[in-house]
Structure formats: structure tokens, C-alpha cells
């Protein structure tokens, strides 16, 4: 799988070139996608008009569309994409399982349930939505962790408990929607997952969470790298395995809850992006985490641009588009790299 050959004189990591190429390419593509996303739409703009729209505060049409509508949407899309991909990558590292994802172990649905309760039953408290989503995600994570605990919480048990919890939450959600079927209409677009109509309000709502979480994610790299050696080896190196694992789970919960609070249930980003990146840059989180972050941001920005322009005048929720493309793509990956699942 890795071309090492006999040229061992070279003091370089066998994946060094690929890593640099991937990081530079996805970073550049992210910027290009963001600019394109500002340009394209029912009304198209030139680069010059976008520049003016962002930096000159006046009352022109480009100011209103670029600054008030598209720019915050692109930024929120990026943050959501980065958060979901990083949350997925962290969970996969902690669980040493490529199928771990906030969506699969039920953390996202915990956030979703809490948010739905607010929207359907207590719509007056809508401003607490992000907090509720985060608390919902955290509560779910704690319940999963507690139920998996037998003098230590093994990754496999966490995933199995998570899948069960996910099913229970799904049932609660369905029951809630049936009981309040008259109010479901308001929740549906959110459940499908999308960032249509988000603006500076939503951006300001999550940006501080995002900065804190991204900084913590940088510190998480060291912990994930140690945990990937296996629990025993990590313990033998004097590492506090359970403490690290708990910190990492809370961090990915924070990231996932934050994403859910503004964009609803967008699936597959956390699963597919780290998976693709891992197959190129390898499993070293010093590279995998930033590559996943850039890739996640890129995927959501591109998908959202497509979802709002291609089906014009209808806006497709980006979550539907991503699930529609992500599901089959993931099946394709499983077919292609069957061996990589057997290893874990």
C-alpha cells in the first residue's frame, strides 16, 4: 500500500509529499469555492463586485446580497463543515473505528431531539436553541459513556450502546412529531439539514464556540495519537486513557452540537471526509485532522452552493443533497477498501 522502496537514504516520511499536496490543494480549493459561492446565484457577481460588496458599506444590491446573505452563509457553511468533519475524525480516532461518527452513535440525534423539543414545544425559547442542541448532544454522550462503562469504556461497547441510543432517540423524535403533527411543518426543513437563510445572527451565535472548539482540537491531536496505539500501550506510556477519551468525546460533542444547532441534521460529512482523507494522508492526526477540517469546509460550501443554485428556483436543503450523494459514495468506499475495515 505504501511505496517505500529501497531508497531509505531519503530522510523523509513516505507520505510527506502527499500530505503537503493534499493540505495545499484542499486549502486552495476551499478559498476558490468560497469565492465562487459568493459569485454564483440567482444574481451573479464579478470579483470586483464581491470585493465592493464585502468592503464597502453602502446600500447597493451587491452589498445587500453579498454581505447580508451570501457571505455569512458561506462562513457558517465552512464552520459547520469543519466542525462535522473534525468531530467525525476525532471520534473515529478515539474509537479506533472508521464507522464512528456523531450521526451514528447518536450524539447528533441527541442534539436534534433537544432542538426539536425547543422548536415544537417551547418555541418561545428559540434563542436557546444552540445551547439546547449542545446540552442534548452532551447528555447523550454522557449517557452513552455511562452505559458503556465497565471499569473502563471500550470503544466497541461505546459504538454499540450509541447505536441503541440512536434508535431510542429516533423513536422519541417520531413520537414527538406525531403528537405535535400540527407544528411539524416548522421543523421539517431543519431536520433535513441545511443552512438556507442563515445570516450574521447565526454566525455570531456559534463563532465563539467554534474558535474555542477548534483551539481545543489542536490540543486533541497529541491525545488521539497516543490512544491510537491501543489502550494498553497508551497506559504503559503513562497516559491517562479514560481521561483523554472523555475529553475527546466531549470535544466532538461540542463540535457536533454546534453544527446541529445552526444547520440541523447534516449527515455523512463526519463519516466520508475523514475517511477519504485518511486514505490519502494516512492516520497520523497531525495531518489527518487539518486535512479533514479543510475537506469538510470545502464539501459543505460546495454542496450548499450546488443545492441553492442547480435546482433554482427551489432551494434543496444541503443535508438532503449530502445524504443523497454521501450514502452511495460511502457504500462505494466500503466495497473498495473492505480490508481496511477488517483491520479494525
Amino acid at each position: 500500500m505504501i511505496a517505500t522502496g529501497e531508497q531509505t537514504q531519503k530522510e523523509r516520511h513516505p507520505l510527506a509529499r502527499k500530505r503537503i499536496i493534499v493540505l495545499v490543494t484542499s486549502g486552495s480549493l476551499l478559498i476558490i469555492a468560497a469565492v465562487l459561492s459568493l459569485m454564483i446565484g440567482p444574481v451573479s457577481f464579478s470579483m470586483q463586485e464581491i470585493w465592493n460588496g464585502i468592503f464597502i458599506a453602502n446600500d447597493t444590491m451587491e452589498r445587500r446580497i453579498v454581505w447580508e446573505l451570501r457571505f455569512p452563509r458561506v462562513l457558517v457553511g465552512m464552520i459547520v463543515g469543519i466542525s462535522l468533519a473534525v468531530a467525525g475524525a476525532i471520534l473515529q480516532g478515539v474509537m479506533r473505528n472508521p464507522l464512528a461518527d456523531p450521526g451514528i452513535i447518536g450524539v447528533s440525534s441527541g442534539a436534534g431531539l433537544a432542538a426539536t423539543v425547543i422548536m415544537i414545544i417551547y418555541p418561545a425559547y428559540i434563542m436557546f436553541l444552540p445551547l439546547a442542541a449542545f446540552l442534548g448532544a452532551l447528555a447523550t454522550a454522557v449517557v452513552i459513556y455511562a452505559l458503556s462503562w465497565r471499569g473502563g469504556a471500550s470503544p466497541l461497547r461505546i459504538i454499540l450502546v450509541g447505536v441503541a441510543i440512536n434508535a431510542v432517540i429516533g423513536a422519541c423524535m417520531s413520537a414527538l412529531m406525531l403528537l405535535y403533527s400540527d407544528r411539524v411543518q416548522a421543523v421539517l426543513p431543519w431536520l433535513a439539514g441545511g443552512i438556507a437563510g442563515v445570516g450574521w445572527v447565526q454566525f455570531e451565535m456559534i463563532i465563539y464556540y467554534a474558535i474555542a472548539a477548534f483551539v481545543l482540537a489542536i490540543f486533541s491531536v497529541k491525545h488521539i495519537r497516543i490512544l491510537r496505539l491501543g489502550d494498553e500501550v497508551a497506559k504503559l506510556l503513562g497516559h491517562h486513557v479514560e481521561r483523554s477519551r472523555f475529553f475527546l468525546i466531549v470535544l466532538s460533542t461540542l463540535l457536533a452540537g454546534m453544527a446541529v444547532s445552526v444547520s440541523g441534521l447534516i449527515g455523512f460529512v463526519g463519516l466520508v471526509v475523514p475517511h477519504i482523507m485518511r486514505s490519502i494522508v494516512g492516520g497520523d492526526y497531525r495531518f489527518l485532522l487539518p486535512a479533514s477540517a479543510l475537506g469538510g469546509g470545502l464539501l459543505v460550501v460546495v454542496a450548499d452552493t450546488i443545492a441553492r443554485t442547480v435546482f433554482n428556483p427551489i432551494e434543496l436543503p444541503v443535508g438532503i443533497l449530502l445524504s443523497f450523494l454521501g450514502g452511495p459514495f460511502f457504500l462505494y468506499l466500503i466495497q473498495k477498501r473492505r480490508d481496511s475495515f477488517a483491520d479494525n
Partner: protein
Amino acid sequence: MLITEELTYRHSDSFELTSIDLHIKQGEIVSLLGPNGSGKSTFLRLISRLITPGSGEVLLNGERLNRMKSQEVARNLAMLPQMQDHQLDVTVGELVEFGRHPHRSGYGKLSREDQEIIDWAIGVTKLEKYKNRMLQSLSGGERQRAWIAMAIAQRPKVLLLDEPTTYLDISHQLEVMELVTQLNETYGMTVIMVLHDINQAASYSDRLIVLKDGSVRFDGIPQCVLCKEMFHSIFEIDAEIFMNNGKYFFTPSTLEKGECYEG
């Protein structure tokens, strides 16, 4: 160096380690022998703190092991668990770097000293050529040496090895045993290991400890432990003991109980 006092560990009704009192001296190479399920690995896991004893104490340099900080333990005591077979995609150099983990507290770069110790560990295990190779591209013997390199990069005073030669072919087995001897003689590391090959244990160890059913049955230099009575009572076989160049070894003759089937 390392003392266990009435160390007891109960796993289930059928298995327990009872009241192990041992004194391992500094600079000794000790091999633990015994049939499957006799408690050898469990004993190693107890003194490496991977599991907690039901009662009793482990003292490392006079200090109680369970009172020590995890990093402190890892700076004094390194263990190579049984052959790791998961596909870890790290290079040999990166793996050995992890051995410095217990000596580092922050998130920054490796210190000059860390780097020197990593190079030393890679040098001792003769892995210079493989430093930038991925672990999973190496042969079993090379991989085992890489894990040993990681363990000794911890600069431990005591090195614990759990069946370090299992699954290796004979030349790689000897390579590992020679490496262990070198680490012991040149760097004064105390070595405690679980071995399956009794002859290997006898020729490379200063002391053999034989366990059965969770308690110590024989303990002494190879010359004393390798005797007909030991094979009879522990492994239930008859054995012939030979001596050559000052080393003792055995060959089994017949199974004590039961019949032998052909084919």
C-alpha cells in the same frame, strides 16, 4: 529493585493469583515459566499496573507502585505487551518517539535529549535503515524490535516482556534474546519476561520463576530449576536434562499421563 508483597489477584472462580512474594534484584534477567493459564502474564500485568491487584503491594525502588503517578511509573518501567498485530500506520521513527511520552509534559517539540535517546534506541535495535519505513511494511522480527525500541526509549530501569519471541522464526527469536542480553549487560536494565521456550529461558536468564495455578512453585538459577522434578510436577512430563557450555537444556521424553496417538 522490585518487590511484590502478598500480591493477590482474583479474576474468576477458576483463576486467581495467590499471595505472590518476590524480590527481583537490580540487573537480573528473570524469566517466568509455567503452563497456559498459570498466571505469568497476569503477574506481568500486575507489576506494570495494567490491572490492579485485589490485595498486596508492588514496591518499585521502595516506593509503592499504586501511589506513583502514571508518568512516573512509565519512566521507570516499560512493558512490551504480547505481539501487537493491529495495523498501525506509523513509521518506526514515530513509534519510537512515543517512548518519550512519559518524559514530556507539554505539547511542544522534542528536546535535543529526547531526539538523542530516540536515535540511541533505534541504533541499539539496529533499525537505522527503517526509521522512515511504515511499521506494517516490516517483517515480524523487525516490527518486534521496533516495539522494543519504543519501550527502551522510555529509558526504563525495568523492562517487562510478554512472550517477546512468540510468532517469530528461530533466527529472529535469537535476535530478540541477544538484544535483551545486550540491554541488560550494557545498560543495566532489569528484565522480567514471560517465555514459552524453556530452553531459551534457561540459556538467557539469570533466574527462572515457575508458576502454576497462580502461585510460585520454583524459583532459582536455571541449574536448580531445570530438574526432572520440576517438569514432572509442573508440566506433567518426563524430561532429560543436559548441560553444554555451562548452559542447561532439556528434551522431553514421554508424556507422563495418557496415551500418545500417532498421526
